């Protein structure tokens, strides 16, 4: 037996397995029977006819009801609590003071959370309150734990927190989400939605997917806030030297009244430009941009800063530092050619096809020996601009190539010293052979001779300066591994490749290499002082590099090699590598100091490696070197009186078997740390430098003006409630009713399986039969 009092809900069930078609069919049958009865009983008085039809209809209805097998589903149930998700912003800006000057934004949140106690009690049967904090990540917590928390997170990824909630509560019942924040979302919604703008479709769809209202409680208003900030600096990580660079700056000013704020751009602490921005109370965000031209390759620390004003909420956001890597744009090559030749033609073709090369060519098309039989204005010749090339513009070239060029006829003797200085200051120079080159070009005892990696014969007799025989240059040991001549990593295979190349035709005679030069390929027969004569030779000269190729027929390595069934790859590789090596492509430096991150936080391990190579580019193991470190305080980047670069530390190192040494250091003091790695080599000291900027992460302080408009729009998009603390009415927080129940007890009572119902139907049939007989019908 059961008692209805044990159950608090019920449902009517139909247990009969009848399809709707059958039910419809039975209904039609019933209606047909009643219609037939009405016709059959048409001669009876109306009340008798209706009585009999009513009895028959009732019997038929009850019979159909029996077939459908009605039952009562009785259940004892209780509701399952759904979730009220409370998200508390614990980012750094929540620690800023509010307009009362005493409590912080986070204090306001703590006060508001006190109101959640009664709320939890009132809705204890229906809702469960889940508390989370969010910064860069979502963390589960409790209301009491939040009381003792300090906001220190360096991000406030509200969007990420919402996405995480959606994932964690998938398939669960959410009553509502309550967000307590200053609205400074560093996540996607905050970035996509500018101040005063509506949420975009993607953000709205994300919020609506919660299927619950989002209530937003803003921690503070803008009232009383006074701050000027360099809120955003947009710049590329790389810039090209001698090319204009744009840096876009967003300035934020609130509570600053009407005034002009100077914004200064500095490079390595030196003022580059200053712009004034007129701020006024009606607007809080101002955009401006700087344009400048980096003058040298390397890393530079730039700073955008504004003055400190009294009463600002904080000063950490008044400056923004960034590191710009200034790299070479296109390699500017000056090709000077004494006369048109196939060697010149194929090298020019190669250089012109290289998108990274900007080629400036000057060919001597006519000399004094050629009579001028045609008026000058019917010719396309231009003067050879020696002054412009070798005095004014020389420094703008990355590489100067003298290809079978003799300087004498063009009165260039006075510029040769400039070229030598240019190379020693970091430039590059290549001399390619021919009858106008090396000694036969008159370069002996000129500044160019001291630059060349080969010694020139003092005699100018043709037999002493040139040889005409065909030959295949032979690689030296250094040539096996040097990037210029390394066509294969396997030295044996490399030599085979070189041996298979077409022979060169003729060479200039040189008297060996200079002491500090590296010979990569030699003549197979001609010797000097018992040593094979160099054909391809390289050397370092001061900060620069030089190359000497004593033949003017390397073009045959490309063109003629194709005729022999080969490719031009070897020719292209040789010259492309030569250019990269000459211009000191960072990938080809013998000492490399690689800093894998430009900016790090204090007390973070620095990720740096020193790599040392032998002149032939094999790893230089067990090489001793010195790493010196200079430190410039961060303050000195905006105030020269705050200090300057000072020696910080000096460390000795020895490279391992792979020619590497890893630097394992941490720096606590913010500032710029400049490193220089030095090793000694037969060619003199080699060095490389790099820097790292150590600075606390102030990203969260870039924009501190509360974004209550964003919070309001989030609430509005989900029919939630928005309030600015401390004005908060807890009763306005509406929660969804729980959608799920828990069944504790259940019983199904069949209504059709009952003798009384059966007897009742029989009684009705009997009454119909009796009345019909009495009223004269069979």
């Amino acid at each position, binding site marked *: 037996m059961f008692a209805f009092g044990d159950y608090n809900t019920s449902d009517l069930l139909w247990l009969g397995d009848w399809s709707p078609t059958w039910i419809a069919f039975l209904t039609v049958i019933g209606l047909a029977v009643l219609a037939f009865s009405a016709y059959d009983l048409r001669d009876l008085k109306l009340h008798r006819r209706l009585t009999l039809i009513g009895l028959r209809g009732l019997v038929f209805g009850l019979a159909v009801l029996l077939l459908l097998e009605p039952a009562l589903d009785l259940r004892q149930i209780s509701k399952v609590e759904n979730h009220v998700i409370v998200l508390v912003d614990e980012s750094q800006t929540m620690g800023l003071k509010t307009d009362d000057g005493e409590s912080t934004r986070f204090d306001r949140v703590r006060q508001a959370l006190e109101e959640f106690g009664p709320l939890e009690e009132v809705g204890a049967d229906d809702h469960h309150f889940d508390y989370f904090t969010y910064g860069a990540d979502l963390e589960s917590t409790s209301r009491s734990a939040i009381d003792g928390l300090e906001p220190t997170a360096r991000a406030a990824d509200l969007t990420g927190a919402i996405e995480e909630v959606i994932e964690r509560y998938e398939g669960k019942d959410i009553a509502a989400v309550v967000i307590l924040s200053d609205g400074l979302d560093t996540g996607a919604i905050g970035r996509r939605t500018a101040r005063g703008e509506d949420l975009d479709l993607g953000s709205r769809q994300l919020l609506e997917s919660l299927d619950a209202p989002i209530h937003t409680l803003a921690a503070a208003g803008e009232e009383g806030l006074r701050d000027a900030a360099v809120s955003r600096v947009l710049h590329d990580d790389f810039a090209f030297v001698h090319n204009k660079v744009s840096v876009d700056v967003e300035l934020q000013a609130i509570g600053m009244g009407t005034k002009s704020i100077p914004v200064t751009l500095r490079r390595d602490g030196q003022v580059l430009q200053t712009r004034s921005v007129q701020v006024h109370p009606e607007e809080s965000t101002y955009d401006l941009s700087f344009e400048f031209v980096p003058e040298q390759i390397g890393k530079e620390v730039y700073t955008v800063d504004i003055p400190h004003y009294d009463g600002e909420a904080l000063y950490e956001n008044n400056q923004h530092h960034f590191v710009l890597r200034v790299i070479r744009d296109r390699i500017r090559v000056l090709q000077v050619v004494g006369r048109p030749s196939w060697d010149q*033609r*194929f090298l020019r073709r190669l250089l012109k096809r290289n998108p990274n090369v900007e080629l400036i060519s000057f060919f001597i*098309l*006519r000399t004094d020996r050629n009579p001028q*039989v045609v008026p000058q*204005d019917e010719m*396309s010749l231009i003067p050879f601009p020696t002054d412009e090339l070798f005095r004014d513009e020389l420094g703008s070239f990355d590489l100067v190539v003298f290809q079978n060029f003799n300087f004498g006829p063009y009165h260039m003797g006075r510029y040769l010293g400039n070229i030598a200085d240019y190379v020693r200051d970091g430039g590059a120079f290549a001399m390619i052979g021919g009858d106008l080159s090396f000694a036969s070009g008159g370069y002996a005892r000129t500044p160019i001779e001291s630059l060349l990696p080969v010694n020139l014969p003092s005699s100018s007799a*043709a037999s002493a300066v040139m040889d*005409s025989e065909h030959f295949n240059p032979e690689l030296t040991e250094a040539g096996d591994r040097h990037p210029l001549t390394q066509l294969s990593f396997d030295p044996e295979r490399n030599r085979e490749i070189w041996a298979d190349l077409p022979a060169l035709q003729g060479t200039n005679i040189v008297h060996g290499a200079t002491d500090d030069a590296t010979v990569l390929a030699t003549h197979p027969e001609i010797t000097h002082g018992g040593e094979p004569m160099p054909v391809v030779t390289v050397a370092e000269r001061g900060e620069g590099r030089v190359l000497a190729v004593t033949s003017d027929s390397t073009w045959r390595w490309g063109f003629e090699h194709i005729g022999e069934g080969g490719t031009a790859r070897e020719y292209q590789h040789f010259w492309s590598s030569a250019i990269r090596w000459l211009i000191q492509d960072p990938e080809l430096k013998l000492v490399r100091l690689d800093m894998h991150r430009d900016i790090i936080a204090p007390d973070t391990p620095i990720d740096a490696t020193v790599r040392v190579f032998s002149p032939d580019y094999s790893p230089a193991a067990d090489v001793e070197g010195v790493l010196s470190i200079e430190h410039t305080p961060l303050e000195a980047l905006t105030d020269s009186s705050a200090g300057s670069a000072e020696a910080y530390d000096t460390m000795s190192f020895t490279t391992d078997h792979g020619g590497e040494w890893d630097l394992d250091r941490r720096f606590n003091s913010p500032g710029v740390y400049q490193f220089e790695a030095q090793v000694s080599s037969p060619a003199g000291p080699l060095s490389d430098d790099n820097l790292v900027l150590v600075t606390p992460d102030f990203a969260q302080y870039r924009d501190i003006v509360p974004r209550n408009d964003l919070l309001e729009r989030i609430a509005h998009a989900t029919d939630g409630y928005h309030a600015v603390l401390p004005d908060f009415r807890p009763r306005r927080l509406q929660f969804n009713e729980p959608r799920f129940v828990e069944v504790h007890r259940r019983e199904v009572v069949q209504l059709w399986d009952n003798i009384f119902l059966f007897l009742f139907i029989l009684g009705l049939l009997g009454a119909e039969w009796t009345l019909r007989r009495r009223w004269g019908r069979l």
Partner: protein
Amino acid sequence: MDRRTFIKSLTAGLGLAALPGSVWAFDKQHRITIARLQYPGGNDDPRPGALRRLLQEVDKRTSIEVDTNIPSISISRTELFDYPMVWLAGDRGFDPFTDDMIADLRTYLLAGGFLFIDSAEGLSEGPFLESVHREFDRIFPDRDRRTLSRDHTVHQSFYLIDRPVGRVDVAGNFEAYFEDNRAMVLINGNDMLGALARDTFGNWEYDVSPGGERQRELAFRLAINVVMYALTVDYKADQVHIPFILRRRNWRVD
């Protein structure tokens, strides 16, 4: 010539004469020459000696040093690649090239070789040019033959040329096949070598029409420009030359 100059010249002459043969050879190997292509059927040397005349003129007027020995080579890979510039001339139709010749010529041109085709027919569309077009439809079935514009670099590689002329003036501008921006084949219908040819006594071999001796001089200039173009390609298209060239073209009276 005074006595001092005479002694200097004599000394220099003796010095040069005393140089070993290998030095002359070295001197020779960097000199520029043009190979003449032999082909089956037709007449591949309709203007004997004219190419040598052209190179002599190049040597006289420009800084280019030339070797006036004109090799005559077959269209084969083994010979083509010794000469980055080759010349194909004719005055009548010729037989189709073999498949190997077609393949070798295509490889040669795409690798950086340069071919100048000169019709001695004096017709804008004669049998020789028809044969040339037929063969080049096989060599470059994937490339169009294009007519050079007046401002193409070949018209300003040394002299400023307004109109390409030769012994005759019937064909208008050169036609060309290109690889990127480089014209690797130039086709001329105005008999350029006809204007340059001299007989063994040094007299001009053919009259030049309709422009007479002025036209012959212009043909020389054009021929020199072609050699200069083969060596320097688009050098005169470099930005540094453009203001000078524009200024001079504006000065000129056509």
